[in-house]
């Protein structure tokens, strides 16, 4: 008999699997069904809502650019650490991964202890330069970079490790300096990994809540980002909260769709 064997567990599996799927999908469905679609443009145009929308997009973009400028070199170091002894190599990887698993609120507290007015570094910034970072727009960016940069670093590192380093040797035999090799060979070859990492980083920054509210607070127009605004609006103007949630969800889905072909290894590490 050439009948395909079916797992005897199948019927027993379908039920919990279905419940699990419903558990993941139904809340989003509720959000879509209950959204005040007709009033959407009007709600998103409201002063406070528009303000948080602009603030979130702006800080998210700045955070992503900072993560790119600092994170790509870190990804290079991490990718080239294969020749290092095991202990520093694993330590480096662990340090980069910590912000991924750390509760964001803890990240916010840690940032306060470092950069707050009485913080490890913050006290000198205040005493010497009169600079206070917490509860300002730069604090929003710092919190976002802290939680989002690891996504970019790991995505770029995965792409670097998957790329053939002999292309760099070939470029050197053609007379290219190290910098030329980096700019014209290494970077373009890992470009898909970089854009995937940047998208993930931007989404994570856009959704940042815990570290931001802890380290930067919630001042409208200054530190009140989309997620924080959504949370606060829920108590006073539910329709606005739903509209904002919808915006955040659409951005996430858009990123997921654009990443579907180039999900990068290394993110699972």
């Amino acid at each position: 008999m050439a009948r395909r064997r079916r797992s005897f567990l199948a019927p027993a599996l379908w039920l919990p699997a279905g419940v699990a799927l419903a558990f993941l999908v139904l809340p989003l469905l509720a959000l879509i069904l209950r959204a005040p679609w007709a009033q959407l443009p009007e709600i998103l145009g409201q002063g406070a809502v528009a303000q948080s929308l602009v603030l979130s997009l702006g800080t998210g973009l700045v955070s992503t650019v900072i993560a790119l400028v600092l994170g790509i070199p870190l990804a290079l170091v991490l990718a080239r650490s294969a020749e290092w002894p095991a202990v520093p190599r694993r330590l480096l990887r662990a340090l980069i991964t910590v912000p991924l698993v750390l509760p964001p609120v803890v990240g916010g507290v840690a940032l306060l202890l470092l950069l707050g007015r009485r913080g490890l570094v913050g006290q000198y910034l205040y005493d010497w330069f009169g600079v206070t970072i917490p509860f300002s727009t730069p604090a929003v960016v710092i919190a976002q970079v802290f939680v989002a940069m690891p996504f970019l670093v790991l995505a770029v590192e995965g792409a670097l490790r998957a790329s053939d380093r002999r292309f760099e040797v070939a470029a050197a035999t053609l007379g290219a300096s190290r910098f030329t090799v980096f700019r014209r060979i290494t970077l373009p070859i890992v470009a898909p990994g970089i854009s995937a990492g940047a998208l993930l980083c931007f989404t994570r920054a856009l959704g940042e809540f815990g570290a931001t509210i802890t380290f930067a607070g919630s001042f409208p127009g200054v530190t009140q980002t989309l997620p924080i605004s959504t949370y606060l609006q829920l108590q006073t103007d539910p329709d606005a909260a739903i509209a904002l949630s919808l915006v955040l969800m659409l951005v996430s889905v858009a990123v997921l769709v654009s990443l579907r072909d180039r999900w990068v290894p290394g993110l699972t590490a």
Partner: protein
Amino acid sequence: MSLSIAVAARRGAFTLDAAFDVQPGRTVALLGPNGSGKSTTLGCIAGTIDYEGSVTVNGRVLDDLPTEKRRVGVVFQDYLLFPHLTVLENVAFGPRSTGTGKREARAAASAWLDRLGIGALSARYPRELSGGQSQRVALARAIAAEPDVLLLDEPLAALDVEIRDDVRAELVGHLAQFAGATVVITHSLADATILASDIVVLERGRITQRGPVADVLAAPATPWVRKLVG
């Protein structure tokens, strides 16, 4: 440009100890079985591995120079054409890297592609090329960088057997375009006899025979060469 090498290198338990010269315009085949140290020798000349001894080109000592300053062109076994650049950009990469302006670099690349009969492929990407075409682009790319010495690592190994004879015959003509010393690494007697004027036999990291192709064919000095000649 004459090439003169006398190197010793260690890779794990393997040691290489080889010395030979190549006169300008001549092609030497470095012939040997797998694991005999051919690629290690190539690495010494190109400066991609550490070694003791000396590599000189026309009296210019290369030992303390990094790969990019050596002016040693390499055609890699699997070509290593840059996947994100067109054929023209691949060939223009060398001149561009050494400071030539974009326009002149492209003109030079174009001229080399025409000379090798593949001008029509300029706008293609490496993934759109056949094996034989890729090999010619790799050769054009290496020569366009104006190296003093040209190294070819198993230039026919990646090609289908049916087209190998044709490509090998063409390669002879193309190598004649290069005025400097050329070293072809191969484990095939056919490659050595057709592409080169002289043969250096390398076995277990040591040179076991060297001389003009006809002499080596007439009087094989080791069992391995004897078996190869048949």
